[in-house]
């Protein structure tokens, strides 16, 4: 494991080499004026200078629709796994932190083989943020930089990339890359400068308390008027859930072939803001009020999930929910700041 440097021209050659070797590479690319993770076909399409992707890279670990089982009627169910290897190219630190959290959640207690299988087959090349998005607040959440979880971390230092290989997978990915040279102390200092800058600049919505204060704050905030006030204009559309890198709730459905001989059981993304998320058969809804669902999301991020993952706040400051929310009520910082102010 080590820290090297690759010029931008050599990096492009390296990516082209990966693609021509037939590896499945999901890289960040432009889509109109925005960015997405998608199958990379050419190194020219890779945009490591992106601000934020529309959907987080969780879509490769927990796909929007994922077959868990197949069956033949009336025989037994059979587990389905996708054993394909995948390289994720360009994961920002806040998204890497989110993946690290999902790794804990899907492996603790009951081990989710479907998620973990995808995770093990994935090589993650993270990259430090080169251009802040308009709603990012990762600096407030302590996720502007990341130091674990990735196989490789890239940092754009102007004339090239500093390349830190952190695992055997990462090491073998870059092994033999043409032009790869040991990073100089100047290169490492330049990387540190990027980190220092991002720790300040990735903060378009500054949180006025420490992230670690949030669980205690929420302890006192259950009946605060903010939930009702904000939820008044909520469409219950669930966009805040689907764009969130740490939301992982899912629904499970069965789909049967037209001749009823075979079928599959699949899971799909679900969202706690959606009206019938907690509705049981017989139509009793255990979280019927919009304000209650709105509050639930903020409590999951700030209290419930943290209690399962050693206190880490399950909001990584990507700002996607802020941009996705049409009535503009989803901003977690606005809510946490309001509570911090009111409940001093």
């Amino acid at each position, binding site marked *: 494991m080590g820290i090297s440097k690759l010029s931008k021209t050599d990096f492009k050659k390296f990516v082209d080499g990966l693609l021509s070797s037939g590896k499945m590479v999901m890289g960040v690319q432009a889509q109109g004026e925005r960015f997405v993770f998608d199958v990379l076909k050419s190194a020219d399409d890779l945009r490591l200078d992106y601000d934020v992707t529309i959907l987080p890279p969780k879509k490769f670990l927990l796909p929007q629709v994922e077959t*868990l*089982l197949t*069956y033949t*009627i*009336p*025989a*037994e*169910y*059979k*587990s389905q*796994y996708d*054993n394909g290897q995948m390289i994720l190219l360009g994961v920002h630190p806040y998204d890497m932190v989110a993946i690290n959290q999902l790794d804990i*959640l*899907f492996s603790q*207690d*009951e*081990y*989710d*083989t*479907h998620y*973990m*299988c995808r995770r*093990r*087959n994935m090589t993650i090349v993270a990259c430090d943020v080169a251009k802040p998005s308009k709603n990012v607040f990762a600096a407030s959440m302590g996720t502007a930089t990341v130091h674990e979880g990735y196989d490789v971390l890239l940092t754009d230092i102007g004339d090239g990339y500093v390349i830190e290989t952190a695992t055997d997978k990462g090491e073998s990915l870059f092994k033999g890359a043409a032009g790869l040279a040991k990073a100089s102390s100047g290169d490492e200092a330049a990387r540190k400068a990027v980190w220092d800058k991002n720790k300040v600049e990735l903060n378009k919505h500054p949180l006025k308390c420490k992230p670690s204060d949030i669980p205690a704050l929420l302890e006192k905030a*259950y009946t605060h008027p903010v939930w009702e006030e904000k939820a008044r204009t909520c469409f219950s559309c669930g966009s805040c859930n689907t764009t969130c890198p740490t939301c*992982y*709730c*899912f*629904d*499970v*459905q*069965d789909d*049967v072939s037209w001749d*009823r001989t075979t*079928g599959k*059981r699949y*899971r799909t993304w*679900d969202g*706690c803001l959606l009206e019938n*998320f*907690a*509705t*049981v*058969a*017989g139509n*009793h809804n*255990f*979280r019927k009020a919009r304000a*209650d669902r709105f509050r*639930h999301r903020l*409590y*999951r991020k700030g*209290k*419930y999930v943290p*209690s399962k993952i050693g206190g880490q706040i399950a909001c990584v400051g990507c700002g996607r929910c802020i941009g996705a929310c049409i009535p503009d009520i989803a901003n977690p910082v606005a809510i946490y700041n309001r509570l911090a102010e009111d409940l001093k």
Partner: protein
Amino acid sequence: MCDCCSVEKKKDIYLPEPATINECQMLNGTEMYMHIGLDSGNPLGHMPGQFVEVSVVGIGEAPLTVSSSPTQEGFEIVVRKVGRVSGALHAMKPGDKLGIRGPFGSMYPIDEMKGRNLVFICGGIGLVPQRAFINYVLDNRSDYGEVVILQGTKCYTDRLFCDEIGEWSARDDVTVLETIDLPHEQWSGNVGVVTTLIPKINLDLKTAGILVCGPPIMYKFVLMSLMELEVPMQNVFLNLERRMKCGVGKCGHCQINGLYVCQSGPVYRYSELAGVPEAI
């Protein structure tokens, strides 16, 4: 099994085990009783209060609490016809195949209650999960004190397990008090909601273990009555229902504030739910 997990011998938590329906019977107009056996021949391994995820191939999966005591062979569920999976279950017959995952969740306090008097308060199909513990107690009768069963049902025709309730009533070591909400010409017993039976309990409620299961609205009134009688909250156990998909603490549907009902429930001590506003 996937390549990487097979190395570690990890089990697929979503894979149902094949099982066969041994017996089906309608208990009333909407509830169907089923006796099921795992095709492996192994016992389900559940404890009273735990639930299973039942799969109907081609339709889907639904969580159902086991209604039978682990002291008997195979296991039983009772299905109310309310949704897609339950509707499909109602169309099934002995010999048909099901998929079973589980058992999941918490159980009734079978050890803690040893030597104690027990009061079961059941509303409608709330009897179904309670029955697992009631029969467990009756199969280990000398381990437990007095047993009082309160059963409230909305109307006469909805009554469940009438023969079994009759057998319990006939025993001299069990007291059964039954009521129906609406009067009926064939019913000469108590009329009124289940809480009207609470004053008729002839034992010290403050020291008894009290086990409650029924529709959401029932909990509020039962708990109100019990608290008026100064029953300690730690002696009261509630069996809660929630929407469940995975049964293993991942999918998020059953969450009550910070609690996953599929893991820490469905049976909760009432005192554990204090400060959990979404619980009841």
